[in-house]
């Protein structure tokens, strides 16, 4: 009897708990006032929360600087300082890069649950995402915030051309943060492999093929195994066609990227140029010769960055920091102390046209304030937070950590890591990356002293000096096509079909699943037009002309 009663009691308890949990209200979002209320109070007007002394909750979504390092811990000194100094409870959420990050933003937008301040992640154009969010009524203009951030406007928002990208109808819709160093990627080759095989660094596409074949077949690492490939890379789903990692081939033909910004007198898609199929035919030679890691169409960036430190490739396109910063170089150095990467210049194609390294279009990360946050009167708190991030206290704390623990400042004002009590706690050590995750998104300004601190030279295991900045200087001074105006171009509504058709055909041509000849190429262009590519080009041209760009 007692047992029966106990069972019944337990059942009732279980059911009540489940029902109560299901019926309990979710964490209640701030009540959204009527739209007639002012979106952002003037800087001088404190928020209700500030008046009452109650901390303001601010939720910030941004991508991480070091994607593999994770978020800062709950007891992070940054949270504590922001709470004490600014009376703000910051909730910092790291969002994924690429399409996954865009999906997360879209899902939050669909539920009208965007965070207070967030990065408008997009695989095509963060600027267009900002505009789209505004059209949907999900973000609020930030003109009043800009007035409340005099210091940050000087340090971070000092490029009117960049800011104009997110200005519509006279309103500043989103911030345009300081971009990562532009033109930062480039082509590199294993010099130790070249030396071992007695080869010279290639300067043309044809020479590259010869070297890649030798790297694949002549055991350049001398381990007696057939385990190397000439070229390594991966297909970058965020870009069109061959993808960013292999655009150095189309660049050799003067046609890098999707749009022909190199020739504004004949603006349009690069595939319209008669030399484009020649560039694909050149790339196909590499595929046919089996000198590219055959997994290139399957693997993602993380897998690629596992493979090159394992010594699988002799030639690749890589970001200078991902290649040569101490924490990133360590694994390769450990595996191959005598290994040596050297940069390659823009390669020349047989056509003799001006060769380009690649196209670059980044304008810096774009951030927006949600309409919900503005309606809840959080604008001044967000401005206060951003302004503090640009102050010496915020800049050093969020960019480099705690002075004396994570960094020191030299007599000439440069952040250094020498003489720290524990070198493992240096701001740029592998184990502390989660403490400065916002640095590339919201903190750094690309000031020369800062750049010198960020990318310091170091000694490899065999005593060579590795200089990240020397790679950067080499890459950035190559001939690049400025495709930043491409941020203005709006994608057509059938983008998913159009991009699939474009990518699928380009890859079919180079992989040999579709013959590449005049007829098939004409069919490809006709197919693009059937999907509205011609109208897209016309619309893009008009958009650029309206924005003042001299394209014809």
């Amino acid at each position: 009897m007692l047992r029966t009663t106990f069972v019944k009691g337990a059942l009732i308890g279980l059911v009540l708990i489940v029902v109560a949990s299901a019926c309990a209200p979710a964490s209640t979002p701030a009540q959204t006032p009527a739209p007639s209320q002012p979106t952002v109070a003037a800087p001088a007007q404190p928020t209700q929360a500030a008046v009452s002394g109650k901390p303001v909750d601010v939720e910030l979504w941004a991508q991480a600087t070091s994607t593999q390092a994770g978020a800062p811990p709950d007891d992070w000194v940054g949270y504590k300082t922001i709470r004490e100094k600014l009376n703000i409870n910051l909730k910092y959420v790291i969002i994924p890069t690429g399409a996954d990050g865009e999906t997360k933003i879209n899902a939050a937008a669909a539920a009208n649950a965007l965070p207070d301040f967030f990065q408008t992640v997009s695989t095509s154009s963060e600027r267009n995402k900002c505009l789209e969010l505004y059209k949907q009524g999900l973000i609020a203009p930030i003109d009043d915030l800009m007035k409340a951030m005099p210091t940050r406007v000087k340090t971070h928002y000092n490029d009117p051309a960049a800011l104009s990208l997110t200005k519509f109808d006279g309103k500043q819709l989103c911030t345009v943060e300081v971009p990562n160093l532009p033109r930062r990627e480039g082509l590199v080759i294993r010099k130790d492999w070249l030396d071992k095989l007695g080869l010279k660094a290639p300067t043309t596409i044809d020479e590259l093929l010869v070297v890649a074949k030798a790297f694949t077949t002549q055991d350049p690492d001398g381990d007696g195994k057939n385990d190397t490939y000439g070229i390594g890379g991966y297909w970058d789903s965020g870009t069109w066609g061959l993808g960013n990692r292999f655009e150095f081939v189309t660049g050799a033909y003067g046609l890098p990227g999707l749009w022909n910004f190199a020739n504004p007198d004949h603006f349009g898609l690069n595939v319209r140029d008669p030399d484009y199929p020649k560039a694909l035919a050149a790339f196909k030679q590499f595929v046919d010769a089996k000198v590219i890691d055959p997994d290139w169409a399957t693997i993602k960036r993380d897998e690629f960055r596992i493979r090159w430190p394992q010594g699988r490739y002799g030639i690749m396109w890589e970001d200078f920091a991902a290649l040569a910063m101490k924490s990133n170089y360590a694994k390769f150095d450990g595996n191959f102390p005598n290994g040596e990467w050297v940069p390659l210049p823009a390669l020349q194609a047989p056509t003799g046209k001006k060769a380009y390294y690649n196209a670059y279009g980044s304008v810096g990360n774009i951030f927006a304030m949600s309409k919900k946050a503005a309606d809840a009167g959080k604008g001044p708190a967000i401005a206060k937070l951003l302004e503090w991030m640009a102050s010496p206290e915020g800049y050093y704390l969020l960019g480099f950590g705690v002075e004396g623990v994570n960094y020191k400042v030299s007599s000439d004002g440069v952040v250094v890591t020498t003489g720290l009590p524990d070198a493992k706690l240096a701001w740029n050590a592998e184990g502390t990356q989660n403490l400065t995750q916002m640095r590339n998104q919201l903190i750094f300004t690309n000031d020369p002293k800062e750049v010198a601190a960020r990318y310091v030279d170091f000694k490899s295991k065999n005593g060579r000096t590795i200089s990240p900045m020397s790679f950067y200087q080499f890459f950035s001074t190559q001939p690049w096509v400025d495709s930043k105006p491409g941020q203005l171009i709006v994608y057509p509504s059938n983008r998913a079909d159009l991009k699939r058709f474009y990518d699928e055909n380009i890859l079919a041509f180079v992989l040999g699943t579709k013959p590449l000849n005049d007829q098939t190429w004409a069919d490809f262009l006709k197919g693009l037009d059937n999907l509205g590519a011609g109208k897209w080009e016309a619309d893009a041209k008009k958009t650029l002309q309206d924005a003042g760009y001299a394209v014809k």
Partner: protein
Amino acid sequence: MGQYVHRSTLATARVLSAPTRRALVPERLGRLAREMWKHRWLYLLLVPPLTYYVIFRYIPIYNAQIAFKDFRPLLGVEGSAWVGFEHFQTFFHSYYFTDLIVNTVVFSTGKLVLGMPVAIVLAIAIHESRFMFFRSLVQTVTYLPHFLSWVIMLGLLLGLLSPSSGMINEGIQAAGGQPIPFLTSPDWFRQVVISSDIWKDTGWSTILYLAALLGISPDLYEAAAVDGASRWRRIWHISLPGIVPVMVLITLLRLGNILDAGFNQIFILYSVPVYSVGDIIDTWVYRSMLDFQFSVGTAVGLFKGVFGLVLILVANQVAKRTANQSLF
């Protein structure tokens, strides 16, 4: 007996006049209430799952109306403007509509038609095994892959199938052959998807068949053995007929989800070279959703749901008439 009386009463009610039938209603309700009170603890157990389904499965159906609207998050579901069937037309007129449907159905039916026999054979093999340790070991080993995410599975598949370093391709090369790009070849991609799905979930799928096999009376096996039936004969004439109801049940349930071909798996495994044979409805929707096409996504979801419902109703009737088995 109670059930007999109840059916009998219902039969009587059909031939009674309307006022009499109306009079019988309170009586029936009262009987139902008494029955429910009698088994109140069992009914109480029903409350949590019912609550779950109401909150998470039925109430959201209300929001499916955005399939017919130009959904604007700020205006909300009700405030957004009606646009009729525009979003359905966007999907039906997609350049790749036929591809998407064909690929989706090929993957779904392939997994069902090829996966089910493997699971049945494994369940029977485990059931027939006399060694408990071996039986438990096989069960555990075959269940394990079910708990791995597809991201991990991709790592394993690359380790096996990569043309540069995969074990299978190394074997092919050692035998003098050329490496096969299993994951990027349109000729191989579907086979890889279906077989990796079978590898991952066969062990898990055997649970239902094993339960059905354990429900068969041992007397039948003993009687057959006494009559001289071989083990194969016993499997053919006792085990297989004994699990037919479960096979019909699983087939019907899977038909309801025929347009769900396994988004996670294909999204992780596919790449541009195999779009022609690998792009399914859900991956297309995912790529379309990058442009804020929430309503299109919902329209496609609704289309899949209605299509699945129609299929399950038709298949249920067919199963009822041909195999005398049905869901309802």
